[in-house]
């Protein structure tokens, strides 16, 4: 079983980009436009998104789908180097 991998998150750009910390390849891209959300999961095998619970600190991200500071999102990604 693969160990969950913390990802590099690049938020200061026209969209969110998550990269493998080892090889820096793109694992996931997210763009929100006025009428759609684009999700590119090219580098991910599966996702485990931890649910927010009443005891969890609130996420700073309004959508709650990704909180790079809270460290709640873990992605199993094929390691490339």
């Amino acid at each position, binding site marked *: 079983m693969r160990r969950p991998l913390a990802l*590099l998150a*690049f938020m*200061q*750009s*026209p*969209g969110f*980009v998550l*990269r493998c910390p080892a090889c*820096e390849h*793109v694992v996931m*891209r997210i*763009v929100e*436009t*006025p*009428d*759609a959300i*684009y999700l*590119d999961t090219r580098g991910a095998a599966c996702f485990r998104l931890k649910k927010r619970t009443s005891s969890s600190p609130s996420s700073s991200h309004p959508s709650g789908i990704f909180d790079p500071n809270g460290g709640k999102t873990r992605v199993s990604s094929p390691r490339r180097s």
Partner: protein
Amino acid sequence: MAKRFVSRGFTGKRREPEAADRLPPGQHITPSFPVLSAGPTPRVSLDEWTFTIEGLVREPITWSWEEFLSLPTQTYVADIHCVTKWSKLGTEWEGVSVDTLFEQVALDPKAGYVMAFCYGGYTTNLPLPDVVGGKAFVAYKYDGRPLAPEHGGPARLVVPHLYFWKSAKWVRGLRLLEEDQPGFWESMGYHNRGDPWKEERYRGD
């Protein structure tokens, strides 16, 4: 001696009405130079840096850093507009016109589009007419100094009349194409061309 090129609307004086006239819809002026990036900043040594024109050309051509610096340069003053809604007026760059680069290769008449490709893997697509006729250049100096890595150094493409994501940082070359292909952000819902005066931010705008 470098020639000087001044982009649309630049007069060299800063009066508010003129600044307002130079601001596309939905934009605000920033005095800073925000750094946006979709990945880590590539650290490219000048000994290893190359710039290539390939694709629909008779013979691809690659310049080393030293060879690139020997090409005729121009100084450009341009307003730049980011799709995230900041604009910066009167930025000053030094670099090589894409026209000058294309003079070194024989373009196939079928070439209609350009894909800029970069160290770090970023890409952005442009119609050929948007990078010729003095509209685009490869910059290696900003404000009289070598272009900082966080702003795309050693060299970046600058296409000031389009949103700034088209001005690819860490550019490594241009690929001439017959058919258009979406680049890194264009494949994720951003507009294919990105004219700030038409607010072409997203697909369908």
